[in-house]
């Protein structure tokens, strides 16, 4: 059995990826009341965009850049304009169902038009391991963790220290007044979708070298990030981050100490307990809506 320190460190790496994807859930919910059930598939698909670029003999860094760019266009802007805008007029539930359909469409399309087989994906980091306090951790895991954390910190700085970030927060908190004050609300919402697409594309580039590129990758990642966002607090970015790390660590410890068979059940148990005890999530705030 692995040491507890190793499991916690590995959990932090997994949690950082969950957090990247979970932040997208909270961003979209806060600015446009969109629950994207295709979020997992959004984190699966960019790896295939990058693989196409790699097949054209482009260097890895350029393939990743192109993958992020194409993701922003398709999974950010086109998703918002072609699916969210038309469906949101009919309410949150039709949109949620539409994103479920989109998830199936994306998954089956990759299986049909690319491959049903898992594809190798080059890593950004070397394979060697280093000793961290007695636990042997791969440089790849450390690299994944550091890049994910850097992305989260950059996002937080952007939201809190720039005019655009402040406008995005205003749109999330009170879109009516933001509009009256001259904040370009639609542009800010579109920017949120673009940021979500960039985050999932980054998550895809980081996680795929470990799990290989496969059409079904989004199922596990999407569910884990969704649970992380709810456990942490669906209306708080810091909640999504905390939920991601908590779930990553619990996931690894459960696999080692409880059972690999019941590994997937543990986060769901946490989810049930949190919903019963603190429905707004660990760091979320209670919301009221007039009906």
């Amino acid at each position, binding site marked *: 059995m692995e040491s507890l320190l190793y499991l916690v460190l590995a959990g932090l790496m997994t949690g950082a990826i969950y957090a990247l994807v979970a932040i997208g859930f909270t961003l979209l919910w806060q600015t446009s009341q969109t629950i994207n059930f295709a979020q997992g598939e959004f984190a699966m698909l960019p790896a295939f965009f990058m693989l196409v670029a790699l097949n054209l003999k482009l260097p890895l860094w350029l393939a990743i850049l192109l993958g992020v760019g194409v993701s922003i266009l398709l999974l950010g802007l086109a998703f918002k304009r072609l699916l969210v805008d038309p469906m949101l007029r009919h309410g949150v539930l039709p949109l949620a169902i539409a994103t479920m359909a989109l998830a199936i469409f994306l998954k089956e399309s990759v299986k049909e038009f690319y491959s049903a087989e898992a594809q190798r994906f080059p890593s950004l980091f070397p394979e060697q391991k280093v000793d961290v306090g007695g636990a042997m951790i791969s440089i790849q895991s450390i690299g994944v963790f550091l890049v994910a954390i850097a992305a989260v910190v950059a996002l937080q700085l952007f939201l809190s220290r720039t*005019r*655009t970030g*402040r*406008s995005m*927060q205003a749109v999330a908190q*009170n879109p009516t007044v933001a509009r*009256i004050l001259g*904040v370009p609300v639609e542009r800010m919402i579109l920017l949120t979708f673009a940021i979500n697409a960039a985050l999932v594309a980054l998550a895809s580039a980081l996680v795929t070298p470990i799990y290989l590129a496969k059409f079904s990758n989004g199922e596990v990642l999407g569910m884990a990030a969704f649970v992380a966002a709810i456990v942490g607090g669906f209306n708080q970015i810091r909640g999504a981050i905390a939920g991601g790390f908590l779930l990553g660590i619990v996931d690894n410890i459960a696999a080692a100490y409880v059972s690999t068979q019941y590994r997937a059940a543990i986060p769901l148990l946490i989810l049930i307990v949190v919903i019963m005890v603190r429905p707004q999530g660990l760091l979320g705030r209670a919301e009221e809506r007039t009906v």
Partner: protein
Amino acid sequence: MTAVLEVSNLSKHYGGIAAVDGVTFEVFEGEILGIIGPNGSGKSTLFNCILGQASPSAGEVKLDGKPVTGMRPCDLNRHGVGRTFQMLQVFPALSVRENLILAGQEHQGTAVGRLFGRADAGLSATVERMIEFFRLTPVADLRAGGLSFGQQKLLDCAMAFMAGPRLVLLDEPAGGVNPTMLGSLGERLRALNAEHRATFVVIEHNMEFVMSLCTRILVLAEGKIIAEGPPEQVRRDPKVIEAYLGN
């Protein structure tokens, strides 16, 4: 005197009901005009039509002589019309300082500058002046959602002045504010009017507040103006007494 706001024959119909019916009035530079009337008299609808939040069925609104009828609220804001809200409308998770910067930042710089420019949008000095003027210094770095109701009303007023407006429309500024804070709010509004010749239109139910603050009062009943004049004259007008107390 120069008319900052001219409202001519403004009407708003909902089906067969006239919420506002041919209202005409002017607001002059440096004036504090109060609009009063019983519940359902059309005050809020009139405000919404002036501010572009509802489309008038007929009539015209001019700002500094230029037609602005039906103009979007954000464009009116750019043209120098500030407003406060009946229900508190601050950004609860942002600090008092951030709320104030936000209220002024969209008027500063180019589109590129708004994306990548300084976080304070060059408004630090104005923000500090507003914080001091509205006596919000002790709470300047606190989240707006954590302030008392009266402090949030002061913040709401301060936000309305961040873009240096020509005209500010105040929607029930006294609503829910305790007497001490109300005194402070009235004093600050009078000071803005005296020192900067700020022009206000105030909708208010608190008669004592509106009579002491405004230089001219306009009374609405069933969508029409039934009386207009200085506070003392309006207070004694039999039509006003009848509208409020009935026969």
